[in-house]
């Protein structure tokens, strides 16, 4: 078995004395669509922010192959990130957003950057929107544009925070198709946080499920297999959309 792209060992996350996840250990294989799932408030997004390098962990280690610990500033981006809201820079056009990192970190002339931006926007199905401001885009389009921005520097790893949250079913399905296309077509490793069941089962190859009560990973593996075979009550509740007994 090849070396994992991301190796997480004994990772604890949270803030001050409040621990969200205690000593989580898992690997992300190259080429996977790795899904972090769990109920609201269990620490999915905080775990993602730790993997990205935005939240320092309370303990443990994260090792990204070829990078080491996640680092953000002072160098060209080595992985792409799409935030839940898209987080496009509102003062820039969509095209400027996508080309921003290229302009900052390369000596490419403006025309070359424009050509790359056009290609990236076409890749995510947003041809002709380069001159628009983010405020002029719908929620789904903003997320696509954010994926284009995350892809601008040709990363082999991309992090997605709740990609289909707040989208209508058609837009959500289209976004799932896009994630699959990027994963299969470009060999992109995707780490995503979501609790959209359809997305998880459609695009996820591996998943971990976090539990708010035990502050641990309660299940890991192929999401379809977990849905069919898991005997863990919380896993079954999640995949079968069962309400908690009050």
């Amino acid at each position: 078995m090849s070396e994992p792209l991301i190796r997480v060992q004994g990772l604890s996350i949270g803030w001050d004395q409040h621990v969200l996840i205690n000593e989580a250990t898992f690997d992300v294989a190259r080429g996977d669509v790795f899904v972090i799932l769990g109920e609201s408030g269990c620490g999915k997004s905080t775990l993602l922010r730790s993997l990205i390098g935005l939240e320092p962990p309370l303990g443990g280690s994260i090792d990204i192959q070829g990078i080491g610990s996640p680092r953000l500033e002072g160098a060209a981006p080595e992985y792409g990130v799409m935030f839940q809201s898209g987080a496009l820079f509102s003062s820039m056009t969509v095209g400027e957003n996508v080309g921003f990192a290229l302009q900052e970190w390369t000596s490419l002339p403006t025309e070359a950057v424009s050509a790359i931006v056009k290609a990236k926007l076409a890749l995510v199905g947003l041809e002709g929107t380069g001159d628009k401001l983010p405020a002029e885009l719908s929620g789904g389009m903003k997320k696509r544009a954010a994926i284009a921005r995350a892809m601008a520097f040709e990363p082999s790893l991309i992090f997605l925070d709740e990609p289909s949250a707040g989208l209508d079913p058609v837009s959500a399905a289209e976004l799932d198709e896009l994630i699959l296309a990027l994963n299969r077509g470009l060999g992109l490793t995707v780490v995503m946080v979501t609790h959209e069941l359809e997305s998880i089962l459609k695009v996820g190859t591996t998943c971990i499920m976090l539990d708010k009560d035990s502050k641990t990973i309660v299940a890991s593996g192929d999401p379809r297999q977990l849905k069919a075979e898991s005997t863990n009550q919380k896993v079954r509740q999640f995949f079968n959309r069962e309400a908690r007994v009050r």
Partner: protein
Amino acid sequence: MLENTSWRAASEVFGDRISLVAGLVPEFSWRSSDIADGVRVDLGGQITIDQAPALWKRVSVLLEQAAGKQRVQIDNDGVDVIDGACMALLVHLRNELKARKVHCEFTGGSPAVRRIVELYGGRRRPRVRRVRRAKNAVEQVGQATVNVFDEVVSILDFLGELVVSAWALLTHPKRMNWRDVALTMERAGADATPIVLLINLLIGFVMAYQSALQLEQFGANIYVADLVGVSMTRELGPLMTAIILCGRTGAAFAAELGTMKVSEEVDALRTLGLLPMPHLVMPRVLGMMLVAPLLTFLAGGVGILGGLLVGNTMLDITPKAYWIETLSAVKPWDIWSGALKSVVFAGAIALIACQQGLATSGGAEGVGRRTTSAVVSILFTLILLDAVFTVVFGVLGL
């Protein structure tokens, strides 16, 4: 004991329509009776939001009556209709009784009424509430002290990062976001010019008018030019310009960066490998510091013009005489000291606004809170800095 049956009797005779026309609200019935080990309440009629105040009174009385009893039974057999608000009050009664170790249960009722009971948790075990204890004065003072300490640490962090970034930019000037320097100069400078001109013209006008009333008594009209000239170039020009920049640009910086922070744009910037300091903060600071002295020169100029208007129209001082007197009073250092002050003021405005903006958390409310905090902190700092300048210049004899 049977109470509140008047409407029920009336409605049997006249029906709902008559009672509504008469301005009567349909009433419910509440009949309480003692049972072996507690109290039984038989509810009846239409218990809707209109009856909530009356129901609440009954609930409060029953809570007192049930003290020392073992159980309370609320029977809904006579209830025609009950809405969610009234059911919530009854469930509150049940939870309060349970908290006082009095068993309480709902019995009877039509299927519709039982569904409402179920929906509002009338049959669920009440959760044990964590009572949040109010903080006493010592705890509040302690918490406030910790908050101040945290804020000071946050400001020191910010300043430390600023120094590191400034040093890095000296060695790698290309890392600076120069585009935003020009943008800031346009927004804080060119766009603010009309308001700076208008306010400082009026300040010069008012100052000349007020002083003229006094100086006229001594035949010293001409000294209006000295007073206005020195004040506007040395003191009021830089200060008023800084106050305008604070309200106009400082608040905008804090709100803009605060919004970027809460909408994860700052995080997105960092994931692109770019630091907020050289990309968001330094361009704003530099842009403000470059444009503030220019605005201050304009402010001094129009302030003197405002004084000239008063001198010429009210005191019969010719423009030429006013101008000669101004030139004799205003020394080059007065102008340069005003410019120096304005640079320091502008730096303080931009730094405080950016620091507050980047410290924002908690959504729209957080943006508002930090923007207010930025403006208040800036105004205080401006007055403090002005006092320091006055003392230092005074001691140095400048």
